[in-house]
């Protein structure tokens, strides 16, 4: 589910862009370090494979077809860091060349699908792949990756103020569940076929020494994505809770003060103040991204 531009409200896309830039920078560096030589050509060609894989249709009941999304398959074959890099490159090309997903919404799409989607696929695999639950771990990983991405995208839309009747929400959640199960089935079938013709294509996770950590992070990802969805779908409940606790008004002033509705109040002209607030916002986002990625880089290089 690629979110186009114009769907997310400014605070949502700006926050997610700020979060995505250092995350991707960190993961890209990590992916590069896992290879002994520069593997950009290899990863690029495999990214092209994911594009092409969408042309091969799978039967889903009579008359309808589905196709592979691919994040989970990349995570199983390349490892999570490289898979995130490939998925990010795919999303960037889709946004630029195919108008599939927006440019300002790229941060949101990257976090949903390339970072958290890939992670959600990899964690069950790293927990169970060495046990007799291996087949289940492949299926569950692929299912979870699509489900987590879809639920995150939906909750971001809710946070941006898109409202939908609860019946529609139910139907769309059911559709997401079906496509997630389909991704699980396709990924499992492809991995099994692949292991027959090229046994080394699927890599073993390095080790599952931090089993508890993996379990906890999987639970955290699931809880967070579902929790955010419910919080965003029913803001009244949260607001009531906030009022009861007496924090709501504080939070609101905290959020409102810096750029009260994007108008720097001390400027008279509406145009100048809007332009200035917009530019200041962009400069702020850029500075935050740069500082965060520098900080991450420095910590790594020591």
């Amino acid at each position, binding site marked *: 589910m690629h979110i186009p531009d114009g769907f997310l409200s400014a605070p949502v896309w700006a926050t997610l862009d700020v979060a995505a830039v250092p995350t991707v920078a960190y993961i890209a560096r990590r992916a590069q370090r896992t290879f002994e030589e520069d593997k950009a050509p*290899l990863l690029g060609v495999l990214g092209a494979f994911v594009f092409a894989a969408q042309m091969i249709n799978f039967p889903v009941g009579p008359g309808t077809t589905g196709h592979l999304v691919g994040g989970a398959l990349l995570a199983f074959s390349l490892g999570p860091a490289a898979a995130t890099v490939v998925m990010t490159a795919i999303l960037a090309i889709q946004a630029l060349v195919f108008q599939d997903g927006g440019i300002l919404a790229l941060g949101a799409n990257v976090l949903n699908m390339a970072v958290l989607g890939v992670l959600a696929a990899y964690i069950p695999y790293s927990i169970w792949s060495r046990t007799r639950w291996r087949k289940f771990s492949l299926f569950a990983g692929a299912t979870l990756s699509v489900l987590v991405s879809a639920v995150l995208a939906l909750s971001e839309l809710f946070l941006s103020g898109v409202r939908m009747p609860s019946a529609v929400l139910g139907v769309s959640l059911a559709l997401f569940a079906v496509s997630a199960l389909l991704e699980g089935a396709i990924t499992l079938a492809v991995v099994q*076929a692949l292991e027959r013709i090229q046994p080394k294509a699927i890599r073993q996770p390095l080790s599952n020494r931090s089993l508890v950590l993996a379990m906890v992070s999987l639970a955290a990802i699931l809880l967070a994505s579902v929790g955010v969805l419910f919080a965003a779908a029913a803001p009244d409940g949260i607001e009531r809770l906030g009022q009861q606790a007496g924090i709501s008004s504080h939070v609101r002033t905290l959020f409102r003060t810096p750029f009260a509705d994007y108008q720097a109040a001390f400027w008279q002209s509406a145009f100048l103040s809007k332009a200035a607030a917009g530019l200041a916002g962009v400069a702020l986002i850029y500075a935050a991204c740069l500082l965060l990625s520098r900080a991450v880089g420095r910590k790594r290089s020591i």
Partner: protein
Amino acid sequence: MHHVVLEQWSRGSSPVHRFDPRAKLVVLLAVLISVATAARGLPLFAGALFLLLITGLRFARVPVIRVLTRAAVILPFTAVFAAVSWLAGDPARAFSLTVKSYLSALAVLLLISTTPLPSLLRAIGITGAPPFLLEVAQFLYRYLFVISEEAQHMTKAAAARGASVRQWIAQVHRFRAAAGALAILFARSYIRAEDVQRAMLARGFQGSLPLLRVTKFRTSDTVFLILASLAPWALRAAAERALP
């Protein structure tokens, strides 16, 4: 295939093509942010910006109608959410979703149809994006069409042998067959990827593609950058004045 068309447009020659990709990237961001944060007087602003983008397309000498229809690929997805917002009793949002997503797609198309993707990715590089990621994107774009054609050959060959995923019978077998085809495509892509990798290393590839031509940021680029980034904001201010 449609992407070949885009590739043709982006290698044309016009004043818009000649502007520095970095300048065009900044202008695109200015346009996108002005659209994304617009609220008051949206219909007027959207109309004015639409005319401005069409003027840009005319200056770039790309076929305007075809670009407009290409940008419409966004509409089916948007229509679903617009309909849902309408059902939820928010027709204003339905309008704003449709207009904003279409205008944003049109602005991106204006950039991509006047700038070859490799130079655009290089321009993105100066913003501090990880070089490794940009190289992966370069190679992805280079091999996108090669591997897509291989996938098309495979589906055509399967269809020639009578395979049809839309049949009612033997769905499980067809599912397995499709999975097998995908596995073969993956294996072939992987082998090709390793070949490309080795060929690149043999040619001295060390992690960065060399520049064939150094682009210089000219005065005209600066003027274009300032004027074109301010234009959407000026339109928006005017629209907000006219419709309080």
